[in-house]
């Protein structure tokens, strides 16, 4: 059954279960990937997805169409994920960003990765780095927005992001070292 997004929203606003399931079916796969990016374990991502969609259905009456439904749902998934990770976030400034002069090389290493590989490595990052990398590099938030969102300083956000990129590059190099042997590097 093909239903327009408007009918889908209205059905969900009336609490009709069949429309809720249709909305879930439409967006669950995309949102599950978002949840995976912010989690370390599959079960954790499932919990985030479940909790986020419950919030979606409870709050869909507040959806005002000033953004797309997909973007609105994604915001809820991201916020739910952040709530899940808050207990693990120990965010302190670690490095002076200006000290690093090999960004270009490190970024190239990371940007050459395929999406599956990158997803896997992002999930291996320490929680703080993982969250801020997701927010800055993928969600497109500015550092001051992240700082506000996570109640940290802008400098902390920047340093965590730098650390994330460094760790990603290091992990790629380590993995390649194991895969191809040190003579190829």
């Amino acid at each position, binding site marked *: 059954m093909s239903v327009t997004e408007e009918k889908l929203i209205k059905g969900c606003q009336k609490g009709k*279960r069949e429309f*809720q*399931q249709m909305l*879930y079916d439409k967006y*669950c*796969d*995309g*949102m*599950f*990937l978002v949840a*995976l*990016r912010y989690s*370390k374990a*599959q079960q954790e991502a*499932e919990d985030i*997805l*479940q909790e986020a*969609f*419950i919030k979606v*259905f*409870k709050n869909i009456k507040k959806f005002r169409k000033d953004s797309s439904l997909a973007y609105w749902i994604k915001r809820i998934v991201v916020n739910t994920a952040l*709530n899940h990770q*808050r*207990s*693990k*976030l*120990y965010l*302190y400034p*670690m*490095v002076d960003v200006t000290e690093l002069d090999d*960004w*270009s090389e490190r*970024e*190239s290493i*990371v*940007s050459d*990765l*395929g*999406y599956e590989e*990158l*997803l896997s490595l992002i999930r291996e*990052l*320490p*929680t*703080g780095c993982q969250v801020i990398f997701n927010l*800055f*590099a*993928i969600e*497109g938030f500015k550092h001051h927005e992240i700082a506000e969102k*996570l*109640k940290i300083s802008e400098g902390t956000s920047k340093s965590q992001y730098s*650390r994330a*990129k*460094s760790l990603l590059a*290091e992990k790629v190099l380590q993995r390649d070292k194991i895969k191809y042997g040190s003579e190829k590097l």
Partner: protein
Amino acid sequence: MGPKNFENSIQRKFENQTRKAPKGVWDGIENSLNADLVTVYAAQHTMYKWMSVAAVFIAVLLMGVLAFPISHTSDNQSVGTSYNALLSQDWDTELFSRNGQPPTFQTGDLTFSPIVINSFSQEEEVLFNVERSSIRNNYYTHTKAISPLKSAIETATVSEEIYPYYSVANTNRKKGLTNNTSKVWAGVEAGAGSFNADFAGTGALSNSLNPAGLASAVGSGSFVNPTTNVAQTMEEGIATSIGVDFGVSIGKKWTLESGVAYTRMDNEGAASINVLDVYTIDNNDFINGSEGIGDGVPIGANSREATIDVEKTYDHEVALNNRVQFASIPLKAGYFLVNKKLSLRVNAGFSANYLVEGNLSDPTKQILNSDDLNLYNEWSFDGIGGLELGYSIFNKFDLTIEPNYRHSITPISNSVNSPSRFVVQTGFRYTLN
């Protein structure tokens, strides 16, 4: 690669990508949505339950009245019967017509004299005169009638019976009947008003905080060794009630009234929560996430090995929703200041309240474990004082409105501050006799 190019390339990698969501997730969502529906239905069920109780109560009351009607004419009937017995005697009708006065009746040991007439008021005298003429007619029409009830008259006591025989003539006096008969009524009332309530002591709230939820709310991660202080303020709230009552008049002025009512009180407030958390963290644990690394092991240029003593304070303000529902059995005494078509009655009494539900929670239900809160007493008692204005719209229907004030005699909560309420009740009552 420039900074922007890097982020753009990363974003492109994830554009339009999906990962198949496990099927079990929808089941969990559906279960949660169903559980919420059950909660809503349960709340509605509580209200319907008490409305059903009220409906059943009224039905039983009405059926009782219909099945066992209250008779207020039995005395008059016996008097009337006796009077007829007197009429059946062979009266000296000449005596009556000669004197122009009611005759002195005598049967057996009883003597009936017209002295009693003097005790009637002027209004009653008029009525009596009207009916006296009918008595006179009766004398003629009933002359020579047989007297089967004579013996019953003869067994009656003496002087106490005299007055009723004359009041037989007043059997049809509506006013006299109404004034001398206890009224019984049943009614339905609904009320709304305000109450001030600072239901929860700070101690109760402190003990009911959910540390994980609070930590999540303040964005601090989990607390390690928290010390919590809570300052709470509650705003004035709304009380609504619905109930049935029944009452009886005692004499012309006094009344006694009781019934059963369902009352719900809602109010909001806020709690300022201060958390002092003191702990030590190992920086290496942070750098390496869950993997960890032994102390002293170098892991790169950006690492540092240290332990950090942390003392953090968090201030958080959380909104509070308070809802209390209870069933009440009021008992009120009343005194009519005015009792005509428009009535004015002063009421005073008390109410026994049984707690149906008490719930104090934050809107997210993450910070307060409302299930753990034990803020309310199962039973409590209120004092009630009010002024009821009534207006008779039909023969037996009265509309009423009563502003009343209720104050706790025994506290509804285990806090020192118990609520007082100002409520305006309105409803109708039906006189059952």
